[in-house]
């Protein structure tokens, strides 16, 4: 069987794909920002001396990391309304993604926190800073530089996970691709273009993160 590739139909809807891509990126960026806040708080819980903080933080990380993200997405969209929490498609997806990435980032940040030498905290205490001031102006900045590579790869995998929003009909890239697929029957062409958009964006994000890492690198 011969099949002639014909991209014309896909090009006609290319702006839809680009809109979808922009939404995918937006979802990933908002989710990782919220995830960083959740992850940071959880990471301080994970390294805390108090059992009351350590246990719940560990439980959250273990449960989220061992549950498929699609189950989380469907749960928050279809099951939360039963508990009286009614969110729109996009809100519920961003919330899920933030909670999901928060669990992964908590582990990343925990590693980064441990890697900050204790002398830094002691120096802060010596010049009379409070614990909170030490965290905000000494430990977190130092930790962030340590974890930048992992933060970058989390952002990239989060960007790919936004494709799951198609399951609850959020018009991101995968959803738009499926729609074009159904309307034009140009199956192969649509998926080639959509995958290339994903791959290109991932490479771009990776390059961007490398540039940030270089700028923030400790001068030797």
């Amino acid at each position, binding site marked *: 069987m011969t099949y002639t590739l014909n991209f014309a139909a896909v090009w006609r809807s290319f702006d839809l794909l680009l809109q979808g891509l922009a939404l995918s990126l937006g979802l990933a960026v908002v989710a990782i920002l919220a995830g960083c806040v959740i992850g940071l708080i959880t990471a301080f819980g994970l390294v805390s001396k108090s059992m009351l903080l350590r246990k719940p933080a560990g439980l959250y990380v273990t449960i989220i990391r061992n*549950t*498929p*993200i*699609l*189950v989380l997405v469907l749960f928050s969209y279809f099951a939360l309304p039963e508990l009286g929490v009614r969110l729109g498609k996009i809100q519920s997806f961003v919330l899920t993604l933030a909670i999901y990435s928060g669990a992964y980032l908590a582990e990343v940040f925990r590693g980064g926190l441990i890697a900050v030498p204790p002398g830094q905290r002691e120096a802060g205490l010596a010049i009379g800073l409070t614990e909170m001031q030490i965290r905000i102006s000494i430990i977190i900045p130092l930790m962030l530089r340590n974890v930048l590579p992992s933060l970058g790869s989390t952002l990239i995998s989060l960007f790919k996970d936004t494709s799951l929003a198609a399951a609850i009909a959020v018009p991101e890239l995968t959803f738009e691709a499926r729609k074009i697929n159904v309307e034009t029957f140009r199956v192969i062409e649509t998926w080639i273009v959509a995958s290339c958009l*994903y*791959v290109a964006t991932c490479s771009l994000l990776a390059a961007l993160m490398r540039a940030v890492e270089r700028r923030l690198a400790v001068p030797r």
Partner: protein
Amino acid sequence: MDLGFIDQLWVARVPLLKGLGVSISISLLAIVVGTVLGIFVGLALTYGYRPIKWLVRGYTDFIRGTPVLVLVLASYYVLSTVGIDLGPFQAGVLALAVFCSSHVGELVRGALQSIPKGQTEAAKAIGLTFPQTFAYVLGPQALRQALPAWVNTAAEMVKASTLLSIIGVGELLLRTQEVISRTFMSLEFYFFAGFLYFVMNYGIERFGRYVERKTAVPS
């Protein structure tokens, strides 16, 4: 008829158990096929001749840059368009195996590259051929290095098996959705499905930790 959750769970036990079985078979197949493919990918990435290395590098980078859901959808719709008639199950497993192979490939490459050059040189010095060197010297060391990450990949595959529900494979999540559409108990049944996945993955995670401890180099 007004049944509670436990009664509904009992009514739905057969489809849910079947779905669990399908989920497990999807994951196992994807892991086995993906690992075999991935070992070749890793070997090519480490020892391949230039053009082969570039080709395989392009393959892994492309697969790793594409969301798994896109791979699953593309595999299902594209293969049937070009006349290869695979059912949703086969197409889905193929997509997951390809995804798995790119991850295992990178694991194998990392493990092989971390072995000191002296090992290969020593093997050459005592007259081993390359296949012998790989079987007796490099392979076992790489295995120890790659095992913990490989176990993580296995847990990843169990989670990715849920994506096959979107192309209509009757695995645990799809069966759960069907039960929910009949009983309207979305909270309870999604929770139940999530719990089952958690148990599977947590088991794999614990097993991974155990293997890691067992295979650690005594220091």
